[in-house]
């Protein structure tokens, strides 16, 4: 009966209930869309930067994290490879030798990063070959695959010859002459403009690094749980060789994600703050309208706790229905934008690209976002439900009945 009473009470003033539900719905839709879009944009950036080249986890020398230099190496021998293969959390791996240098073609030059990789292992990690826009993967000494941006900067094409002059291992000078066999489009715009891939052997010879590698990038079974997986794997490493998750390797990006999360919380909080006033107004009106009735109910023997429970149920119902109605609109829109990302064009796109981001708007289907929206609305409504409970507790039935 109490449930029935609470349910019917909601509908005793249909217009007010519909306005309140509409208000909650609007906030849920807006907050969900904003959060999923922001989260989606960040997901793309993380996917591009981390998934496209950097990797969700990597084994480095501790010094390399602070100052990426070819001089910091980690062993890469049979026992290391056996260890990597034996770990269930690790799906794939790719050893890299990473050196810097000036890449020149004719009169064109660009300071870039030369990455020595095993093409097969790299492909299993980053699906390198799928991103080739021209040519093929590099297989032998003397071959290079250039990032599309870098190739454009150098005006290089397939079969072009480029020269690399850089700093090798422990002060050695690196000089390489390479033929372009492929051009790859890397999803991260900055990496696209500066990376050149050679074979591991080429890099080893060219940079005079005959033992170990600079980094072993890892593909994890579940990249979404990179932090937890790395935490488990960390126990098996001793300094100076350590395993790092992407957020430790790319602190600026991680900070950006964190800031984005914080902004999401602030924006949602502002929206819900506005909603709170609406909800509180509804509760105040409800209390004023039903004061006599509350007095009468207490007079005929209804415990204040039961009466409080009814008002609590009413607010909870409103919150649940408002949120559900919000999701009815938000989820299809979020799903559509997730499946059909919007590519930005024009100046906006250029501005975003300047920061190295892909000008693409795609919503995130992260369940946590929806869950937190629901929890927030419910939390607010439960918080404001305390007000009628307090009023009822201190209510004098006799005075209340007089209105």
């Amino acid at each position, binding site marked *: 009966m109490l449930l029935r009473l609470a349910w019917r*009470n909601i509908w005793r003033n249909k217009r007010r209930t519909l306005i309140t539900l509409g208000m909650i719905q609007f906030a849920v839709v807006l907050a969900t869309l904003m959060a999923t879009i922001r989260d989606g944009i960040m997901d793309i950036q993380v996917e591009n930067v981390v998934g496209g080249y950097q990797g969700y986890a990597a084994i480095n020398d501790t010094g390399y994290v602070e100052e990426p230099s070819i001089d910091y190496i980690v062993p890469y021998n049979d026992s290391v490879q056996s260890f990597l293969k034996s770990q269930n959390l690790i799906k794939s791996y790719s050893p890299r030798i990473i050196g810097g240098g000036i890449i020149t073609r004719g009169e064109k030059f660009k300071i870039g990063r030369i990455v020595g990789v095993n093409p097969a292992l790299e492909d299993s990690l980053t699906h390198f070959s799928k991103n080739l826009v021209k040519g093929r993967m590099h297989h032998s000494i003397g071959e290079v695959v250039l990032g599309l941006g870098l190739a454009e900067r150098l005006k290089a094409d397939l079969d072009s010859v480029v020269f690399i002059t850089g700093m090798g291992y422990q002060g050695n000078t690196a000089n390489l002459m390479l033929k372009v066999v492929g051009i790859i489009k890397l999803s991260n715009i900055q990496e696209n403009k500066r990376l050149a891939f050679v074979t591991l052997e080429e890099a080893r010879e060219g940079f005079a690094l005959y033992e170990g590698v600079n980094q072993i990038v890892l593909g994890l079974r579940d990249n979404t749980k990179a932090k937890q997986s790395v935490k488990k794997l960390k126990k098996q490493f001793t300094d100076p060789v350590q395993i790092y998750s992407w957020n430790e390797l790319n602190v600026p990006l991680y900070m950006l994600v964190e800031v984005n999360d914080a902004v999401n919380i602030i924006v949602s909080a502002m929206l819900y703050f506005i909603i709170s006033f609406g909800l509180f107004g509804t509760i105040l009106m409800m209390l004023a309208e039903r004061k006599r009735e509350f007095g009468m*109910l207490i007079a*005929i*023997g209804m*415990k*204040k706790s039961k009466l409080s429970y009814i008002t609590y149920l009413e607010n909870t119902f409103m919150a649940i229905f408002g949120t559900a109605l919000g999701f009815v609109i938000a989820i299809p829109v979020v799903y559509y934008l997730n499946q059909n990302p919007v590519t930005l064009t024009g100046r906006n796109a250029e501005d975003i690209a300047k920061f190295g981001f892909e000008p693409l708007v795609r919503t995130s289907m992260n369940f946590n976002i929806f869950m937190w929206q629901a929890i927030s609305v419910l939390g607010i409504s439960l918080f404001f439900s305390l007000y009628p409970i307090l009023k009822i507790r201190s209510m004098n039935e006799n005075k209340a009945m007089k209105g």
Partner: protein
Amino acid sequence: MNVVETQNLEKLFIDAGTEVRAVDGVSINVEEGEFTAIVGPSGSGKTTLLNMIGGLDNPTKGKVQVDKVELTELSKNELIDFRLKNIGFVFQSYNLIPVLTAYENVEFVMLLQGRDPKERKARVNELLVAVGIADKAKNRPSKLSGGQQQRVAVARALAPKPKFIIADEPTANLDSKSASTLLDIMQQLNEKEGITFLFSTHDQRVIDRARRVVTLTDGKITEDKIVDV
């Protein structure tokens, strides 16, 4: 046997800085089966007296016993529980729950008492027949006339089988026909089932039906007479 006993009941109010003695040393006993009217002009203290007898208001001084239980010694929660089990209320403005049907309004108090569904159903049907609105059981208060609503209120007050019923100006908002029907019902319940009624009124039609008329003037009992109806 006395259902209600009051001793030197007093209620003081401060109204705009002035002390107002709404009830002034009222001692009254109500026996089981009485059909008693508290009468008097507006502001004579009828409602205040009934509120104190019903445990809705605390006396400034004096004692109120209902079925030998001293109400002034009960806590607020105990009073609510006591009212639920022992006192039925009929209010001037009906005060039904607007979102419940007539049937549910009558059933509601029994539900609060935790009575089992079978007993509730039987009692509610019996009462709706007794007050003559069984055919309106599914109607919400907004679909009932004032008289019908007040009859539902009487049925609601009777539902938990209280020791007595307090009715504060029960006919004040009713037309003559509805008032007459309501009084017939209340009188029948009193005569046939021995239900004790204590009501405040200044409606002559009600006074004419009462078997005992207690007159209050300025908070004091000025007359207390047994009437042959």
